[in-house]
């Protein structure tokens, strides 16, 4: 016990690390900006690197919180943001944008194309699934049933996405595969800033819901006994978690493992299951993990030995050992 670092030490160390690595994200990239003309360097820093950093922070926070809430609401340690089909819904939206519409939509006065269309339809897809889940949440009593409904939805949507893949042209398929590999680059600064604000506000909102979340840890029956409306609490929590997942997946593509691994890592580090601690812990750790992943993705380009790596190449590599350690510990 004497060797266990205090919570304060953990908070301070991880916060310092996050600040240092965030600064590194701005300083390091695939080009040496000190060699570039000032205005180009300034543009790269403010319009390319800063949005990617903001998006890393936002996505890390959103996915970790979403995972934490899913694991508590579902009473399942292996629950993660993609389990209930929200990510699949976003994939379907992206698939329609890239493989069916060819990246462009023209309807009356409405014209959308490129990234905006992909993001718009991904968000729509994810929110549609969220709506179905919330509808089901009001109908079904047991969370296992809700979990199965989500998994079935996920399979159904994956099947539709598979069909779109099958009939897509080589160019469209490549665009979809690239989207599916996940990336923090290419997001506009205003979008990234908005995503970060929503993530932080959600974090505060979940802090307000820490008591019902703690009650759910002891089972749905207990939560009902202590006076919480099970359906309302579950619906609210599911909505927040799904919204966070939808937002992240739409902007960065489906990012694997962060939502599953970070809540467990937070429980291990802070040695608690109390949401009053875990919510800020996941906020900090999730942001840190994605910033680390983002930096690691840049390394091959930074060292001049290759290209930047897609995010989903690294997140399972970092996340899987955490999950295995937890499974073995059980």
């Amino acid at each position: 016990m004497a060797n266990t670092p205090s919570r304060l030490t953990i908070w301070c160390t991880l916060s310092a690390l996050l600040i240092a690595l965030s600064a590194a994200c701005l300083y390091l990239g695939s080009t040496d900006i000190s060699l570039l003309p000032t205005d180009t360097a300034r543009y790269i820093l403010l319009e390319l690197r800063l949005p990617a950093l903001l998006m890393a922070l936002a996505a890390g926070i959103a996915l970790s919180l979403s995972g934490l809430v899913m694991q508590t609401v579902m009473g399942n340690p292996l629950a993660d943001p993609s389990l209930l089909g929200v990510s699949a819904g976003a994939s379907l939206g992206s698939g329609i944008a890239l493989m069916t519409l060819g990246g462009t939509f023209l309807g009356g006065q409405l014209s959308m194309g490129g990234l905006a269309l992909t993001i718009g339809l991904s968000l729509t897809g994810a929110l549609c699934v969220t709506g179905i889940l919330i509808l089901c949440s009001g109908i079904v009593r047991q969370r296992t049933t809700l979990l199965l409904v989500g998994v079935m939805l996920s399979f159904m949507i994956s099947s539709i996405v598979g069909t779109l893949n099958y009939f897509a042209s080589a160019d469209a398929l490549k665009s979809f595969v690239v989207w599916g590999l996940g990336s923090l680059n290419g997001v506009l600064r205003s979008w990234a800033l908005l995503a970060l604000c929503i993530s932080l506000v959600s974090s505060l909102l979940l802090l307000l819901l820490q008591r019902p979340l703690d009650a759910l840890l002891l089972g749905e029956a207990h939560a009902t006994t202590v006076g919480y409306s099970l359906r309302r609490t579950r619906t609210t929590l599911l909505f927040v978690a799904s919204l966070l997942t939808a937002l992240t997946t739409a902007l960065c593509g489906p990012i694997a493992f962060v939502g599953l691994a970070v809540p467990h890592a937070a429980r291990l580090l802070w040695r608690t299951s109390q949401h009053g601690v875990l919510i800020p812990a996941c906020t900090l750790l999730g942001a840190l993990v994605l910033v680390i992943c983002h930096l690691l993705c840049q390394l091959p380009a930074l060292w001049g030995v290759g290209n930047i790596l897609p995010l989903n190449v690294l997140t399972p590599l970092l996340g899987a050992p955490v999950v295995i350690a937890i499974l073995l510990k059980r």
Partner: protein
Amino acid sequence: MKQVWFTFLVLLGLCSCSPERAGNGWQYAMLAPSIEGDAFPQYDRILAASAVHASLLRELGAGERIVGVCDANFIVGSELREADLRNFGSYANPDVEQILVAGTDALMLSPVAGSSYGAFGTLGLPIIECKDYLESTPLGRAEWMRYYGRLVGHGTEADSLFACVCMRYQPVSTERPFSVLTDLPQNGQWYVPGGKSYLASLYADAGYTLPCSAHNEDSGSLCLTIEQVLALGASADLWLIKYAAPVDLTLEQIAREYPFAQRIKAFREGRVLGCNTLRVPYYEQIPFHPDLLLNDLTHNTHIYYQPLR
């Protein structure tokens, strides 16, 4: 008189092709099987899995030998569309029963390195390996038509056609080459032609340089970040964007979706050309007619790349 002129032009073309590779009957192709000798198998009912090879066979006058294609829904060229070729399904999952029932006697397939032929391999039919896409020069790739021509009894026509391509493919030498930026990023990743790629070679012959892959030795494509492209290619004179969309790309759309475009000189000066591969048969024609693209780029005919508005 026309025939005399044609023969003269063919001979001129063949003479103007400087041989780069001795032996096996090839002048430019580095990876093709030998075309020396007369012992060529002849095929009468060929499945040309890709539209590019179906298009070539038709051009060589062997259209009646094509039993069908795969992915017919992606055919863009009007002549090939009007031919109403039988569709044997997706290349990744072909209808093998229909292929057999149709009496196919050979399969023209493009192999992917390290992978098998999947369902095609189970048919026990001769496979004509179309490795032309692995060639790193435009004429090297186009020269494969001489091999394909011999397999359908149209070797002479193929030789003539290739000679015409060689004759028309006239590299441009310029003291100050145009620097060119290519395509658009996808999810923050920007694929550009490698420095030793087929496209880099074609652009070089058109008098263009690729600033983003100037010191690169890859024969495939290169994945860069937006900041790398801005650092290397912001001063590009011309921006060539190949894309596939149901409606044509506009400058306004690029400015809205890709704010960094304003940093690129070619965009600011309005020198952005687009090739919508859903409307223009780029992929069907260019592999065996690099001369058409070269001519498009050097003489601004705007058949393939059109100015974006």
